[in-house]
């Protein structure tokens, strides 16, 4: 693959590891540029439908001002883009939790990001990976201005207002959903409990059951409490200062403590002396 690009008229910059370096400028007249590093997305284990193999481009080092939309437009020069996903770190997408409404999704960090661009056609991926290095991608153009700085913050502030009814609606729909899930869960537990109950002939059906399916999970705190109770009981049964050797031991212990304290103090003093902490002025 690298060899084929060597023949390209305008050379693309490929580095070991199969990554291609693209040049990204904020404006066409910007004096400096960032390096977008792209590669075809290829992971053995991934089964995600969101990132289909051979149509997904893996993009690194995306500056904070490139939003999903900007990125979509930038890469549409290589072919129609189906979707763009941005995350903070490379890795599997982690949307296992129930979908939250936009008001409740936590704000993302505005740092450099990693992107997965899914093209409609597989050929776009190769086109992007062989894009010449000296033709920069431009983020902010006349027809597609990107808001940054004060403009952006005013925009953000203006759009931070949520109409109460919409918010209420989002809350209600989530709670309905939650209640439904809760009910289902209860139903399931009830069913399992029924299954474990005795049948008419006194037999209990023992099943493995799903993980964490028990009605009430035993907790760590409860475990500890039992342990503590036991050790307390043990201690109560012990006799103190009963035998003469025990008495002697207590005395010995006292002297040992004094000694230890003395040594500690000596150490403190030595340390302070080393730091010249005893010169009053």
């Amino acid at each position, binding site marked *: 693959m690298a060899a084929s690009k060597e023949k390209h008229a305008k050379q693309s910059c490929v*580095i*070991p*590891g199969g*990554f291609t370096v693209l040049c990204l400028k904020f404006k066409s007249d910007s*004096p*400096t540029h960032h*390096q977008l590093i792209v590669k075809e997305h290829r992971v053995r284990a991934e089964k995600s439908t969101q990132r289909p193999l051979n149509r997904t481009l893996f993009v690194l*080092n995306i*500056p*904070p001002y490139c939003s999903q939309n900007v990125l979509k437009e930038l890469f549409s020069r290589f072919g129609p883009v189906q979707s763009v996903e941005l995350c903070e770190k*490379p890795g599997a997408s982690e949307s296992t*939790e*129930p979908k939250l409404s936009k*008001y409740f999704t936590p704000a993302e*960090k505005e*740092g*450099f990001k990693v992107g997965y661009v899914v093209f409609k056609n597989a050929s776009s991926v190769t086109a992007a990976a062989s894009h010449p290095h000296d033709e920069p991608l431009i983020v902010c153009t006349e027809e597609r201005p990107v808001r*940054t*700085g*004060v*403009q*952006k*913050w005013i925009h*953000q*502030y*203006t759009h931070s*207002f*949520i*109409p*109460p009814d919409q*918010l209420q609606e*989002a*809350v209600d729909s989530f709670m309905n959903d*939650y209640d439904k899930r809760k009910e289902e869960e209860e139903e399931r537990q009830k069913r399992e409990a029924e299954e474990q109950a005795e049948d008419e002939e006194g037999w209990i059906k023992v099943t493995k059951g799903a993980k*964490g*399916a*028990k009605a009430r*999970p*035993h907790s*760590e*705190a409860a475990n500890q409490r039992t342990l503590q109770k036991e050790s307390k009981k043990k201690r109560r049964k012990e006799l103190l200062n009963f035998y003469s050797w025990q008495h002697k031991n207590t005395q010995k212990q006292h*002297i040992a403590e*004094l*000694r230890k*304290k*003395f*040594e500690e*103090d*000596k*150490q*403190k*003093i*030595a*340390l*302070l*002396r*080393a730091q010249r*902490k005893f010169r*009053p*002025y």
Partner: protein
Amino acid sequence: MKRKNSPLPEDLENEMEESGSSQDEGEEEVEKDRETEEENGKKRKRSKKTVTPVDSEDGVLRPIKLTRGELYRPPTVEELNQLKEAESLFHCSLLKMQMEELLKEVALSERRKKLVDSFVLQITDVLHSVPHSPVVELTDLSWLTDVQVPFLLVPKAVKGKFHMEPPASVTLVGSYPLGTCIKPRVTVDLAVTIPSAILHPMDAINQRYPRKRALYLAGLAQHLLSSPAVGTLRFSCLHGNRLRPLLLVTPPGKDSSSVTLRIHAIPPPDFLKPSRFHPQKNNIRKEWFTGMEEPEKETSETPTPHYNSTVLGDHLPQAHLQFLSAVRDQCPAFKDGVALLKVWLRQRELDQGTGCFSGFLASMLLAYLLSTHRVGKSMNAYQLLRNALHFLASTDLTENGITLAKDPDSKAPSVAEFQAAFQVVFVDPSGHLNMCADMTACTYKQIQHEASLSLQFWDDPTLNGFQALLMTPKPLIRTYDNIFQLSGLVNLQASCKKLKLLGELMDHSGNYVVTVLPFLLSLLQRGLGERICLLTHSLPPDPEWPVDSEPPKHKDQAPLSFGLLLTPEHAHSVLERGPPADSPQAAEFRQLWGSRSELRRFQDGAITEAVLWSGVTACQRRLVPLQIITHLLQLHADIPESCVRFIGGEVDDVIRVGREAPSTGEEESLKVVQCYDDLSRKLWQLEDLPLSVTAVQGAHPALRYTQVFPPVPLKLDYSFFGREKTSRALVPQQGKPCPVYITPIKVICHVEGSGKWPHDKQAIRHIKAAFHIRLAELLSSQHKYTCKASPTHLDVWKDGVAFRIQVAYHREPQVLRESVTAEGMLIHRDNPEARALELETQHRTHLTSTLHGLQQQYPCFGAVCRLAKRWLAAQLFSADIGQDAADILVASLFLQPAPYTPPSSPQVGLLRFLFLLSSFDWKNNPLVVNLGNKLTAADYTEIKNNFAASRDSLPIMFIATPNDSKVSMWTREAPSVQMLQRIVMVAAESLRVLEAQLMDPSQTQDVRVAFRPPLDMYDVLIHLNSKQVPLIGKAVDRPRATFYQGIKEGTVASSGGALPVIDYDPVKQYLTELRDAFGELALFFYDPYGGSVIAVLWKPKAFEPKPFKTSLINARSVKVTDAEVSTVPNIEAILEDFCIIGEGLVKKVEPRTEKWVV
């Protein structure tokens, strides 16, 4: 990229660790002689080796480990005794060892003693070879060629003859032969007896003897000048008494700083009869002193007790030495006891100058205690010091003088007679001399105050008594709440006239400063009354001058400083209520206050004399003592206002708010708190909520009076803003300057727990949002407040102030911590999310209410917090020491003031805050702040043990409070070791500059110097467009041109109106984005109160090339060398990003490329 010169941050860590040792080496060189006591040195080395070879290297305490054998071996009797003594006599062996170490530090080394002895021998030889000179008139000074007489010859004419002759004897007197001489400033007293041929029995009269003494010293100086054994020769005088000049001699060459020889000239022992110097006798004739013939001769001349004691004092040094030597021989710990007492006095600046409590007095005091059996002969130094302080604290020498004379002869004056002539009385063994003749009553009161204060904290097991007692210096400026200085001392001559003090002036031989001082003090004491609990003054320092120049005049000395210790409840009241108009005291009151006194009728119907001072705001009222002082001094002592320099309100400027009356935010804070109280009441009373409100708590500095610039009620100009489409709320407009910043004041609203709450974190969030919506509906329908609900909080616009209400459910942190393992076990694991929530809803609210209580107890707590935080912010440290941590630090100044008293003025509070930051040993000690007095001594020990056991995993700045004894939650994230190191450095420097500025009358007052950060250490400066900095008006150096921020004058409506722009600060947004994007590469520093520069510091390790990794590529560029791919930060692009991200806000990015290269 590399750094050009060795930069700060990367070496800081090493520096911090090495600082101990490298500093040591430097000092070792300077003070070679200090450490030459071989024996001592060896012992030290040995102890280091045996105890802990590790800890002295890295300077950190480690838990000690002893083997079983060491711990449980059978004890010897000796060891048992030693351990027992340490346990019973001292708190612990630590204090004993500390005292021993201190004594070792101040004791003179053998080498130094040898040097002194040989030098004394040399000088004695030279002195004995003084040539005879012809007899001349006393006024004829022509025989003195190279030196001036160390005496102010006023009046000039005096009868008598003088000639030089070798001294009758030269002997050592004072502390050196006694063995109580300590470092630093080693002075050895050498008494030179004037031969009796020079003196005449009538010389005691009219300063003839003191002048002969001065001439004799001048003669000795002239002779010594030619000797090669002499380094420098200067004149001085004993405790500032101009009648007792001294000749200071130092050895030549490099030893010059190791010892100073003070040569006293004394008369032969039996030269004059002590009975002639009875305090009621006169020895200076008015006729001679004024130079005027008085027509009718007065029958009796005024007594001259001070002059008498001066002359008499010269007769006795040898007798005193004998007496003290006898005492020393009886009591083995006498020397060490005196040494400790001297250190104690020196730390309190009481041991030098006119009217001081000198080391000689300290020895005499211990001798007195021994002779009266108040201390035993076998006591150790620690007990001697303790008993001495106890005696000082409990005995008032201004009322009941004490005497050392066992059986005084019949002619000796009685203590009552001494008491009548002097303010403080301590009679020497001969029974004729009052050793405290020059001491003012105020100075003694100060000693008493210090002694009782020391005893108070000595026994307190919760603090480091040793540190506070003997190691912490207490300079005037840091000790007293208010200071004022009298400059232009020449004006005091006029005061002498005004107060009719001719007799006293004669007694003090023309020293008008010393003459008038007691009268000024008693005047001020009367005038300030119960406003102050202590009035003290600086002791005028002993002048020193070269032998070939005239002695300095009285007016040339440094300005007199007075310190006031205020009583917080009375100090700043504007009303001075006097006696009823018809009572006999009324005349006295009128006499004291002059024209300011007027008759007033009070609400209770009484008509009394009263004085009303001006002052509306707390900031103005703090200047009431100044008004009183200037008024009284002008009225009674003719001292013009221009001579009085009051140091008490200079730094207030940097936290000044208020548009009409100058204020430092007390009134504004109070208003905010009242407004909050109203809101919380209304929240409580809301009905129709699904669950009831159980508590409303503030979680914002403004609600505990410590917000640097408390929110001020605002009225907004709607035309300045844009409007949001649906809610019609105000929004900032593009192209206009940034609107005024409105701080949202955080209020936590706890809602009752109930089974209805879901047990799921997302569900709880949604329920809380529903609560916010409901609260908003109710508040706007029932009270007409404008509200804005959002999922995380609810903003309420009320009385021109914005509150941000957040609903809290007390079990939420627990829910956040819960998780279920694969085995189905329910476990609790701490996580940042839960911690942050707990901090916000539980700890911060608790802290807020605790500190609110502290403010009620100490009225200036809030102001000190605000000043301290202003300083931190101005020095760009506000991100490192947060608001809460700073408030707790300040609280510790009030709760644990030893060795001071709790500060009663913002300024002294700031100074002590800086001192705490810079002097506390953060590495080895936890700072325990006993908020609400909930910790016991046992808790302290536990905290310390925990701290020592897990030092490495704890934050470098460890602050423990009753609620938080293990983790130091407020300083968990910051500061880092390096930043703390820098904070300590800057604090020390600021303290130095600030104190110098405040104390030095000649410098132009600019205390803001301490609030301007040094910017030269930073790598990039981002200059901001001041129009987009909302708090620019609060900057340390306020800009001349301000711009319109959408505020109108006028009364503020209590409810309704459009929702203003709340919490919109472009700079804050910018900083968050910068830290998000480049936090791994650089640190960003900013002054949130109107700073117009963001300082950037590259992290030292960020610029090393790293191998290519997909997880480490942000903002970097790739470099290919051979088959290796490495990445380095794309510095040019980053600098451009600074501009892009801050479009419209950033004016200029200034890379300081002189410090680094790409």
